[in-house]
């Protein structure tokens, strides 16, 4: 078995107000099921409480994100995915659910710096103002022409995921946006 390679091998670009980095392979599990049915198994598998609508619960290198009324995304170190799947499968034996390893299906980016919100606001129709979007929420939306999701990590930077095949496209548009001159639309004090 070889090391899982991230799609862009850790590409980085630095703009005037923001930095865009591709992060190493991230363990991810898609879990579908009725929220009530799967809550205990999730806690057992990853040690975190269930997120409510649009929430992401983060603790250290693990997180659970609400993706839709019957879908969660579990994040963990790459090496822990198999153990997580095993726990889920044991706990959910007899419960209608779907748990699959999707660690390799996506690219993960980190967007940090005072201009991070503006980077995303150039590409996503979502309201990026601090009043509308803050830590603890996951937003699935459109990044230019591809689907993406983002949240704010514990260090206050944005994490963004998109499908692996469009990693280069996403990186390119993110970098283009990061290189843009500051817009100055969001109050400065709220920069992440």
């Amino acid at each position, binding site marked *: 078995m070889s090391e899982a390679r991230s799609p862009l091998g850790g590409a980085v670009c630095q703009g005037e107000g923001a930095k865009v980095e591709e992060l190493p392979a991230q363990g991810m599990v898609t879990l579908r099921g009725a929220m009530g049915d799967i809550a205990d198994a999730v806690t057992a598998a990853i040690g975190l409480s269930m997120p409510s609508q*649009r929430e992401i619960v983060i603790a250290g290198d693990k997180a659970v994100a609400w993706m*839709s009324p019957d*879908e969660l995304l579990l994040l963990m170190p790459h090496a822990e995915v198999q153990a997580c799947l095993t726990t889920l499968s044991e706990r959910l034996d007899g419960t209608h659910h779907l748990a699959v390893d999707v660690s390799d299906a996506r690219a993960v980016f980190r967007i940090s710096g005072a201009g991070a919100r503006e980077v995303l606001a150039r590409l996503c*129709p979502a309201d990026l103002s601090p009043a509308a979007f803050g830590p603890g929420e996951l*937003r*699935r*939306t*459109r990044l230019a022409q591809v*689907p993406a999701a983002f949240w704010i990590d514990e260090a206050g930077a944005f994490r963004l995921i998109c499908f692996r095949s469009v990693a280069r496209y996403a990186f390119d548009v993110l970098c283009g946006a990061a290189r843009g001159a500051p817009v100055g639309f969001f109050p400065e004090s709220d920069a992440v």
Partner: protein
Amino acid sequence: MLTLKCPYCGILCDETELAAGGEAHVKRAGPGSSDEAFEAYLFDRENPMGVHFERWRHAHGCGKWFLAARDTVTMEVFGTYKAQTTEPPEEIVAAIRARRPEWEGRA
């Protein structure tokens, strides 16, 4: 450029986050159905000027299909609701009647 609230994830979606899916509440006619019923299923659509029910998928989002009641002329949205129903829910019908007393109901 409409905005519609996804009843599943609660987001007020931009139209560019959605995929349109045509008229809602079309009843499927399968094997054994008459030619007329099947024609109606495949081809007959209301296409009204005014109150209309339609299907939308939150494609760049939670991926769920939902239904919307909308005025095709003024773009007024009377409400959105989950797709797991064969008829518009009562509160949607009430919301339409409150705004469009002359509405004669679904054909």
